[in-house]
């Protein structure tokens, strides 16, 4: 580089700048600049023969004025003239002016390009460098068009100086970034790869950046770079720190180059050649080893450089995810960093560990650091580091440490930073649910969560608690008790009131025995919170009150008083008012039986993916929650999924609001709520129960039933006119109930039999409602359930006798407890005898207890599904049936039917989206039978093909029979 001569001091420029700096006000500055501009204009205009020095000086001044924020509209020509100068400083200022000021559409661009071309062609390396820098700094499309052909030539030419090669590589990189389409791939690409072997490390560093970018675009073309990069890396890593002279940075050999090489390697999968692979592993091991050595310098630069290389190596190891040994070592190394006093290091370590936790090889290793991570969560000063710690805890959580991690997270939540609270709440909720072994623990955790961070608990979280409590009877009592205790706190969060209201409304009876939580106390406790709550919560509490009316008739009067009060009946909010009016009427008019039916305990919720998880994913953005979520997910078959938020809310309302009660009350209100009507909702049943004797109402009710029961299967209700021909053992009846649990089983002029059933694993409970449609009493009413032949051993049914007299218009209820011992084919028969007006009536009906009722749905991924499908490949295990569709082929209806059948409907499993796939396990006392099914509709031919694979031949047969009747 030419030495800077004394004359280059440019005193005029210095004076000008100091003048500007001394200006007292903006106005003074503008005046000074105007004066200077006029001066420069007169200079440029005046004597044409301005020498290079003054030209440079004035161009510099213009540049300075421009950088102060003023417009410059002249002097470009002078700057371009400077390009042709032979002095380095003048050329440099010319290029500087051009790269700062010349916009791409200037007329001068041709002149400039010419200047650049001349410099590129010159053999003077400094000039070539200046030209290349200018191209890279401007980086416009025009520049790219003009020079993309030349630069690769310079880059790969044998006689180019190292420094020029370096600049050329970086310049090409820049052009490739700004206008990738213009950079041609050619024969030079292969020669670029060989720059990795260049003597000069600067060239290698620049070339690596270029190759990495190019390789991301065309991995195939640059495949050869892998082995070169590995050998280069190993040479660097194994070299003594003094070997590389200029490129040793605080005793670390070429850290930037190492990092770039490691990045380049991350564009490719692990090398296949054994030798290369071995060498790479060796390199990585060496890097890991070096991290253990005592530092050669106390300077922060040394450790920074060293750690940069190390972290890049670790991300390469994670990227490859193939060497368990390396992964574990990386994990241990990161573990050491977790306690490092550098905050940045701790952050990086936690972040890398998060990705390590998802690798199956290192998951266990990561878990060993749990104490440290928890400690970090507690003591860390920097919130972003704490956030990483939370992420890592979430990632490393599994069944073994869930209790500990959840407890720690809850602990931390009390002091957590506001910005991350909601996320932690979601994470706690998910972990608590996913790894819950003991559901009392789950309930405790979530209630705690609401207590600690109620504001951050979203709707989804408390919906989920309720779903789980409702779906699991073993925790119902406990949760009622816990909730009751939690509600006793003087100030509790509204979310807690919601949960409390819902759970006590459903299961308050379970703790009513204790005098400390007697019905009245429960009610008063809830009502004390009523006035502090928002409208939706109040609405929920009103539903709770009406449920209390059913559960505890003794406090009915108190509740009616509350409902009757003006603040309810004349509430400004329409929803509250309507509820109060309807509930009050309901409680006044309906008999206890009707109340018991209307205000029946909520049916279990169908299983879905946890909406909390969806929410977390949404919050984190795509790809942020690692995929391990899926891979690690343990199938917890007794865990139920969630419904949509609406359904919880509105199904609570469904209990009373829709047309059923409307008809009953004769208010003529249209169905207010667009009820979701889950297949199990009490709607259809209620209608029949209330239908009394009046045929008009009954028919109305039937239409209502059609509206409400979505999977309506039976072609028509069997209404027998002749009591004598009353043996309804046709399979039709049974088929009607294959996919639903509630409905009208049988009806004739005399009586109606309603049915409501629930099944859990191998147990079931069936409520049979016998309604007397006449006005006279049925006498000596008796029922019997008959299990024929083999069914006796396969099915265990226990029942209590009902009252021998059924009053006119009244209804009696009978409960059947059913236990499935092993798989069965036939359905039990219900035999009913009674005396009506002297004549003995006898009728028998097939009870819709079918094998599919004992299904438990199983969620699985496509991969799992087909793996198991293949395992069940013995011919006897598969049953296939091709049949014609009896009903219109509606996808939604079909889906509902499959879900109603009891299996889990698996979305996105079958490659053909129009096909349906399902999976479930049939629970019997003796065995459990896994079942996979696949339904392929053919809309053109109006045909279905149903394929079932289970581990038992008979099961397959029976299920196929049952299901094929449904479509």
């Amino acid at each position, binding site marked *: 580089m030419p030495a800077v001569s004394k004359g280059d001091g440019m005193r005029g420029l210095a004076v000008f700048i100091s003048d500007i700096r001394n200006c007292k006000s*903006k106005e003074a500055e503008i005046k000074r600049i*105007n004066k200077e501009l*006029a*001066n420069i*204009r007169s200079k440029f205009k*005046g004597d044409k023969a301005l020498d290079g020095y003054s030209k440079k000086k004035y161009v510099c001044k213009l540049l300075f004025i421009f950088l102060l924020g003023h417009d410059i*509209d002249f002097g*470009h020509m002078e700057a371009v003239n400077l390009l042709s100068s032979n002095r380095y400083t003048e050329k440099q200022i010319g290029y500087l002016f051009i790269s700062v000021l010349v916009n791409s559409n200037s007329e001068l661009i041709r002149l400039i390009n010419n200047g650049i071309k001349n410099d590129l062609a010159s053999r003077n390396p400094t000039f070539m460098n200046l030209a290349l820098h200018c191209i890279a700094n401007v980086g416009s499309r025009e520049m790219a068009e003009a020079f993309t052909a030349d630069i690769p030539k310079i880059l790969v030419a044998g006689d180019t100086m190292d420094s020029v090669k370096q600049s050329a590589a970086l310049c090409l990189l820049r052009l490739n970034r700004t206008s990738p389409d213009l950079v041609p791939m050619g024969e030079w690409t292969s020669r670029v790869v060989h720059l990795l072997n260049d003597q000069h490390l600067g060239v290698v560093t620049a070339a690596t950046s270029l190759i990495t970018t190019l390789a991301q675009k065309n991995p195939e073309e640059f495949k050869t770079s892998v082995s070169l990069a590995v050998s280069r890396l190993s040479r660097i890593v194994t070299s003594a720190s003094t070997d590389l002279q200029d490129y040793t940075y605080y005793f670390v050999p070429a850290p930037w180059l190492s990092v770039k090489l490691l990045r380049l390697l991350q564009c490719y999968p692990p090398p296949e050649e054994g030798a290369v692979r071995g060498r790479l592993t060796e390199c990585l091991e060496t890097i890991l080893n070096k991290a253990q050595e005592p530092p050669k310098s106390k300077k922060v630069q040394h450790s920074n450089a060293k750690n940069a290389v190390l972290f890049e190596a670790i991300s390469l190891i994670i990227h490859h995810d193939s060497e368990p040994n390396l992964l574990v070592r990386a994990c241990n190394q990161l573990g050491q960093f977790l306690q490092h006093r550098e905050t940045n290091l701790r952050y990086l370590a936690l972040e890398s560990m998060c990705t390590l936790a998802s690798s199956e090889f290192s998951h266990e290793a990561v878990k060993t650091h749990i104490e440290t991570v928890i400690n970090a969560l507690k003591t860390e000063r920097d919130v972003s580091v704490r956030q990483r710690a939370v992420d890592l805890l979430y990632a490393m959580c599994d069944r073994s440490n869930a209790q500990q991690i959840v407890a720690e997270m809850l602990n931390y939540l009390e002091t957590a930073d506001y910005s991350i609270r909601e996320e932690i709440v979601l994470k706690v909720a998910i972990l608590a649910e996913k790894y819950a072994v003991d559901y009392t623990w789950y309930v405790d955790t979530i209630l705690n969560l609401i207590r600690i961070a109620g504001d951050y608990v979203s709707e989804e979280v408390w919906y989920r608690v309720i779903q789980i409590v409702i779906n699991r009877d073993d925790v119902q009592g406990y949760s009622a008790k816990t909730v009751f205790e939690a509600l006793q706190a003087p100030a509790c969060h509204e979310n807690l009131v919601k949960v409390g209201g819902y759970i006590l409304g459903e299961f308050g009876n379970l703790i009513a025995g204790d005098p400390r939580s007697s019905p009245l106390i429960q009610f008063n406790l809830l009502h004390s919170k009523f006035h502090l709550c928002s409208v939706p919560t109040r609405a929920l509490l009103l539903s709770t009150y009406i449920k209390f009316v059913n559960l505890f008739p003794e406090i009915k009067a108190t509740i009616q008083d509350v409902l009757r009060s003006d603040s309810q009946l004349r509430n400004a909010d329409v929803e509250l008012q309507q509820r109060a009016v309807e509930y009050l009427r309901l409680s006044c008019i309906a008999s206890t039986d009707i109340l018991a039916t209307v205000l029946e305990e909520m049916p279990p919720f169908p299983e879905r993916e946890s909406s909390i998880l969806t929410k977390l994913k949404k919050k984190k953005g795509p790809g942020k929650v690692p995929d391990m979520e899926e891979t690690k997910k343990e199938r917890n078959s007794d865990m139920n999924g969630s419904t949509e938020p609406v359904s919880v809310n509105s199904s609570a309302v469904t209990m009373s609001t829709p047309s059923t009660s409307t008809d009953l009350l004769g208010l003529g209100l249209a169905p207010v709520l667009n009820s979701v009507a889950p297949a199990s909702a009490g709607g259809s049943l209620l209608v029949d129960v209330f239908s009394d004797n009046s045929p008009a109402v009954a028919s109305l009710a039937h239409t209502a039933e059609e509206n409400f029961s979505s999977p309506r299967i039976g072609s028509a209700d069997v209404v027998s006119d002749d009591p004598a021909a009353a043996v309804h053992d046709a399979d039709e009846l049974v088929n009607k109930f294959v996919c639903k649990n509630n409905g009208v089983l049988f009806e004739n002029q005399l009586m109606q039999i309603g049915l409501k059933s629930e099944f859990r694993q191998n147990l079931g409970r069936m409520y049979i409602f016998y309604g007397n449609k006449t006005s006279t009493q049925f006498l000596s009413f008796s029922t019997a359930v008959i299990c024929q032949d083999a069914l006796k051993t396969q099915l265990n049914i226990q029942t209590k006798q009902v009252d021998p007299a059924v009053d006119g218009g009244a209804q009696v209820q009978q409960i059947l407890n059913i236990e499935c011992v092993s798989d069965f084919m036939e359905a039990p028969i219900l035999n009913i005898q009674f005396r009506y007006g002297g004549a003995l009536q006898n009728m028998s009906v097939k009870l819709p207890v079918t094998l599919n009722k004992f299904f438990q749905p199983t969620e699985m991924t496509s991969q799992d599904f087909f793996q198991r499908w293949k395992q069940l490949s013995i011919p006897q295990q598969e049953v296939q049936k091709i049949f014609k569709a009896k009903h219109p082929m509606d996808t939604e209806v079909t889906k509902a039917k499959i879900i109603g059948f009891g299996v889990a409907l698996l979305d996105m499993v079958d490659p053909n989206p129009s096909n349906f796939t399902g999976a479930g396990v049939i629970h019997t006392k003796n065995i459990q039978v896994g079942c996979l099914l696949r339904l392929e509709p053919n809309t053109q031919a109006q045909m279905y093909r149903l394929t079932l694979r289970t581990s038992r031949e008979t099961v397959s047969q029976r299920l196929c029979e049952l299901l094929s009747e449904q479509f």
Partner: protein
Amino acid sequence: MIGGLFIYNHKGEVLISRVYRDDIGRNAVDAFRVNVIHARQQVRSPVTNIARTSFFHVKRSNIWLAAVTKQNVNAAMVFEFLYKMCDVMTAYFGKISEENIKNNFVLIYELLDEILDFGYPQNSETGALKTFITQQGIKSQTKEEQSQITSQVTGQIGWRREGIKYRRNELFLDVLESVNLLMSPQGQVLSAHVSGRVVMKSYLSGMPECKFGMNDKIVIDKQGKGTADETSKSSGKQSIAIDDCTFHQCVRLSKFDSERSISFIPPDGEYELMRYRTTKDIILPFRVIPLVREVGRTKLEVKVVIKSNFKPSLLAQKIEVRIPTPLNTSGVQVICMKGKAKYKASENAIVWKIKRMAGMKESQISAEIELLPTNDKKKWARPPISMNFEVPFAPSGLKVRYLKVFEPKLNYSDHDVIKWVRYIGRSGIYETRC
């Protein structure tokens, strides 16, 4: 209701900060500095809203005065107060400069305490203030003096104290006007108006009652109806139409409304009696005739003639013509017959100065401007030629008809008062397009 008042120097450093209400926090000081003073002149509006806080500012040389409020105040009131504040400060310590403000900060705080109370403007009459806010050391006032101040400050005539005595009763009356003009190159008036002030200095004994009369058109017409013979004399151009006017608080507005007569008990010393504005029949003291010729891309020829348009006996002073030059000027040659002309590169203009010029004369300047060819396609915007001058008459045509003084208690009559009347017409924004 002003929440607070801040005074900054040109760098944005706070010199004075007085907060009257709790809703204005300390951060308001910084908000104004960052968003207005340091905004590199991108904020040109005198009212700025930052985070629901309104800042009203005026600038005096390098000093910024900013009033801050969170309420919906009358902006005109706030600005009136700020101007008054400037007047008061000028009356106390002369020019408003950083130096002066720093030297008088105790006084300024004292003044601010007096003239604003909980953000409500109070008596800001300099004469009255000077009686109890002094720059001398504290001298214990006698009971009488104290009660006198109290009665004056709280009394009906807050602007004048009783018992003033002068040996010579004198009165000075200045009519100060500024003419604003925008004229087309062809000599067509695009807009013109005069804004004027009547400034008085009175040194009168006792509590005199004054009456001021001028050739206001409405008054003259009214009188014309009364006395028919005078109508012919005073009609026509002798009367002027005043578009709007404002008065000092001492003027009895009720009397003005009913009789349109201006009567008042004057404050002692200097004050501004009234402000007015006229737009009709303005006498334009100067006419500018520009001639600009572009010779090719690199040369511009400019010729400007000014003509004085008033009585030859009068002399205009401090005449300055400013001819803008293009931004790519590289050299200027000027020839003028009278005065001095110079190209000022720092202001991008040719400045032509003439010391004195009598009426009904004309003068000329010609200039050759060399231009540097630029690659900028933008054409030169040709800003207007502006002018400054001072003439010894009122361009609006306003005449003082009388100023009568009555003092019933003391025995001096209107004839004993020595009265001085002076007219000064100055240029406001006096521009001619070229």
